[in-house]
């Protein structure tokens, strides 16, 4: 087990900069998830840590040592691939023990380790089978087993659940978390699925365009996004963004989002937003913070009426879509209180959860 650090790491392919000078510290035992849209540089970063891609500039440290020039086999890492990458001609046992055999481990030690990993992953009865006789979920377990037996300093996962169906993905997600709690190895996990990122990670690294947008715990990321991109990327359905103007209204401030709707800014934020009074900004509020008026102690000035365009019953809740000044907004309401499409409905904006974004810099204020 070891800590991993990236210092000003750059990856350039010809004239394209896939990773643009990133810095990241991953303490021992931590489970870090790199998340972002396709082409954001997350897989490239993981592959550089693995040694499968050369670093154009900067340094990568594993366990305090610079590993830039070390081949993958000397970095003491194990990797789980999206398509499992099991050796098709070998049995599960041989697949799992291949790395140990190459490292000339004694036979009884190999057997002990494989049996131990197989027990953790519940694949003991599959050890004699070939990969083609396994289901997708079983193959993924074997791929994890191959990583576990090596007892490496760092686990690297490259979108390991992308090839599984939705139900199995949830199952394996729990499995990965359980395994990490058991073996407690520093883990770097790449995914484009924000739900995976939020559920698995101790800390999430959100990447975009080859840069790190934010590094934070899942809760922090959700409630305190630092940029427009992170605010929009984390959360499903995505956060609503509405063009607005911040207005001084007596002692308080209000966010004007249309000619008819302006919402009060909580007093606790007044000082923070004082410098942007009168400016054109982006108002951000998650769908779950636009509901039917619920709380008895609510501020009536946070309520507004909206004509619903689309209503999507989800069972536990109903998504309602309406437009504000030509921009589509989504709210999550109780199924019992939802109106039909074309009807007007009173909604409540939980302004304690609001965000204001500077459209010029893309930073959350």
């Amino acid at each position: 087990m070891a800590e991993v650090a990236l210092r000003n790491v750059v990856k350039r392919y010809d004239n394209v900069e896939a990773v643009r000078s990133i810095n990241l510290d991953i303490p021992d035992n931590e489970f870090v998830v790199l998340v972002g849209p396709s082409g954001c540089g997350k897989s490239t970063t993981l592959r550089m840590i693995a040694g499968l891609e050369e670093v154009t500039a900067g340094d990568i440290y594993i366990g305090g040592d610079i590993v830039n020039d070390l081949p993958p086999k000397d970095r003491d890492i194990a990797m789980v691939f999206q398509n499992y990458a099991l050796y098709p001609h070998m049995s599960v046992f041989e697949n799992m023990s291949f790395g140990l055999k190459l490292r000339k481990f004694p036979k009884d030690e190999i057997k002990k380790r494989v049996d131990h990993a197989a027990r953790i992953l519940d694949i003991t009865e599959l050890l004699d089978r070939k990969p083609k006789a396994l289901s997708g979920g079983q193959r993924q377990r074997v791929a994890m087993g191959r990583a576990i037996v090596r007892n490496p300093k760092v686990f690297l996962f490259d979108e390991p659940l992308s090839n599984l169906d939705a139900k199995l993905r949830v199952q394996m997600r729990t499995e990965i978390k359980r395994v990490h709690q058991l073996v407690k190895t520093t883990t770097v996990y790449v995914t484009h699925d924000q739900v995976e990122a939020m559920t698995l990670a101790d800390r999430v690294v959100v990447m975009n365009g080859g840069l790190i947008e934010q590094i934070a715990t899942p809760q922090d990321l959700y409630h305190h996004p630092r940029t427009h991109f992170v605010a929009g990327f984390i959360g499903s359905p995505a956060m609503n963004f509405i063009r607005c103007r911040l207005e001084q209204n007596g002692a308080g401030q209000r966010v004007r989002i249309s000619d008819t709707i302006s919402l009060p800014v909580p007093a606790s934020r007044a000082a923070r937003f004082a410098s942007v009074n009168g400016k054109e900004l982006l108002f951000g509020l998650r769908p779950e913070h636009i509901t039917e008026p619920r709380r008895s102690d609510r501020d009536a000035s946070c309520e507004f009426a909206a004509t619903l365009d689309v209503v999507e019953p989800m069972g536990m809740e109903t998504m309602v879509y309406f437009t504000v000044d030509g921009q589509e907004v989504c709210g999550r309401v109780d199924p019992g209180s939802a109106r039909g499409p074309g009807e007007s409905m009173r909604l409540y904006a939980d302004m304690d959860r609001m965000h204001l974004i500077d459209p010029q810099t893309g930073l959350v204020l």
Partner: protein
Amino acid sequence: MSTAALTARAAQGFSLRASLSRNRRWALITSYVFLVLFAIFFLIPPYYMVVTALKSDAEVARMATNPWFIADGVTLDQFRILLTQTDFLIFFRNTIIVTVCTVAITMVVSVFAAFSLGRMKFWGSSILATGIFLTYLVPDTLLFIPLFQIVKAIGLLNSYWGMVLVYPTLTVPFCTWIMIGYFQSIPKELDEAALIDGAGHLQMLTKIFIPVALPGIIAAMIFAFTVSWAAFVYPMTFLYSADQQVLTVGTVTSLIRGDVYKWGMLMAGALVAAAPPLVIYAFLMDYYIAGLTAGATKG
């Protein structure tokens, strides 16, 4: 839905099924007709060889008898004389030595070449791969003239070891090309997993790539075997004494004297010479088809 409508729907379904089965029957009949025609067309020469090889010289020479049937009874004399009174066994031995060596050299060179060209991306690798295949397109009927000079210069003229040297010029390009396609069809994560597991490039090749690409390698082996076993132009040009000769040329040159053709022995010799490829094809045909298909579609 009314009973009449249900009956009409059922009748429609029945007629659709009947039409499908009629279509299938016609497709099968057409296939069988053509397959039988092809089989007859291609089996006539071997049949003629077998019939002629089992006749006596006297019957072969007698123009009055029907050449398609054995009139005077079956005899194995042609085989006996061929194996005991001619150099046929020397030709056979030489051919085996040349073929085994050619296949071995071809496989070693091609597997390494295909692995490096197909998997280890380096500057100019794709141009090199194309270049190797282009050399295959130059026919041996053109190559034998410059090759004659080369073989003569290194002192291997009239030696079957010269064949071991020149046959790979025919087999290596095609086998490399087949295996490049096969190696490229193996997911790249497999070598990355092997690298992380601690394998070097040689271990990756021997422990992962060769076993996974075995169908392709066997296909390439069969090709190298066939080319080497059946080569005619090079031995015709480079070999001229009986003790160095191989089957293809040796059988013809020793059994045709001027305008005297020993038809019975020629046919017996051709049959014995065709036996090893026949056995190999029979056992490894599935691999051969799998290998060629992979090379053709994924390369």
